């Protein structure tokens, strides 16, 4: 397995040691005092993250790119309102999520929101497929069609699950940071995360008809992972 960032992810409940925090706070003060070019340095570590989050919410690269630009511009414009008690990264993620949600409301597809969204999240989810899973090598991600299937599976989840999943499992925020960014409780994060992971697992399960073993290019009897 290649560069797995997961191992660096903070252990839940233990605050991450944060050497960058003071540095960022100092940068922000300097930007507010007129050294505007330092803004590039401030956002550089988070540019990718803003794109991935807006992409997961909007499910379209072009919209996500526009939302990323607008979110970072807004962050620059409203940097004066940022309070240093919270982390800059969390605040920036909130700005990005707001921007993506705003765009989504403007577009028409809210009307066509799937029914799953209204589902009660407390209802327990029963896994549907129990085929044995082999370990999937990360090299599989070099294949475009596999990435597309994974992105499509994630895109088929209701938005509240996508939001939690992208922050925790894609961007490796802690449960607490995810809760803070979304303005929900840590308990709600865990419930939605469990649900999102179970649903994705079923959607991608090698034994279920459709995604992997269905009408795709994979010949019968051969698991796409092999």
């Amino acid at each position, binding site marked *: 397995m*290649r*560069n*797995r*960032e*997961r191992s660096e992810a903070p*252990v*839940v409940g233990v605050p991450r040691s944060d050497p960058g925090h003071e540095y960022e706070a100092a940068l922000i003060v300097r930007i507010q005092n007129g050294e*505007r*070019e330092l*803004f*590039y340095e401030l956002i550089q570590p988070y*540019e*990718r993250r803003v*794109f*991935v989050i807006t*992409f997961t919410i909007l499910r379209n*690269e*072009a*919209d996500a*790119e*526009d939302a*990323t*630009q607008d979110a*970072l*511009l807004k962050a*620059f*414009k409203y940097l004066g309102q940022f309070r240093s008690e919270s982390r800059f990264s969390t605040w920036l993620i909130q700005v990005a999520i707001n921007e993506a949600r705003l765009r989504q409301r*403007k*577009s028409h597809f809210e009307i066509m929101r799937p029914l799953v969204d209204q589902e009660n999240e407390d209802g*327990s*989810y*029963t*896994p549907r497929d*129990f*085929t*044995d*899973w082999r*370990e*999937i090598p*990360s090299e*599989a*991600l070099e294949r475009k069609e596999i*990435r597309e299937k*994974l*992105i499509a599976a*994630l895109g088929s989840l209701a938005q509240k699950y996508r939001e939690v*999943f992208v922050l925790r*499992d*894609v961007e*490796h925020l802690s*449960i607490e940071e995810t809760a803070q960014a979304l303005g929900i409780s840590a308990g709600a994060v*865990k419930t939605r*995360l*469990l649900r999102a*992971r*179970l649903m*994705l*697992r079923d959607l*991608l*399960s090698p034994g279920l008809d459709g995604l992997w073993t269905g009408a795709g290019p994979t010949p019968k009897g051969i698991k796409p992972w092999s």
Partner: protein
Amino acid sequence: MVVKCEDVWREISNYLEEDLEPEVKQALEQHFAQCRQCKSVRDGMRNVIELYGDKAMFPLPAGLYPRLHDRLANHIEGKRISRRAWLVSVGVTGALAASTVFAAMLDGFVPQPRSEMSQPARRLPNQLVAVVDGGKMFHLPGCPFLHGTYHMVTAEEAVREGYSPCTRCMADALHSAGNVKPDFEGEETARSESEEK
């Protein structure tokens, strides 16, 4: 401690997060050793987390950063002109003058519009626009007149390929690019000419 499959599924996410009391964790592990189904749920979920958590999962679109930084630079660096920018602007003005002369020479060349009814705009906004293969117009993403799968090209490329600007969604962009009234200039001249006759 004996746990049922339903209990395992409820705690499986916390198990993979290592966010469980030691005795619950142990009970789950005993259960996995005996229950193939729950082992499948665990292994599948672990795969899901590993795959989506990999950086290779979300490759960025080509040119994302340059476009982003161009847009940010417009706002962050503002209109202050440094000495280098001044030299560059002199150079650009020269190049523009040369290209105007060159354009005058090439005036005869106008790309063939895809629709007979349409005219390309005279001055083009410097931005990406959405086109659909087989379509006639270029749009901003999200325009209600944009149908089907689109891809992004620069406005210049779109016109070169024979697309015309959508008068609805592109109106503002064309206006700010210096087109007083997109598309209708020719019509008006034609009308006034015919009135004169």
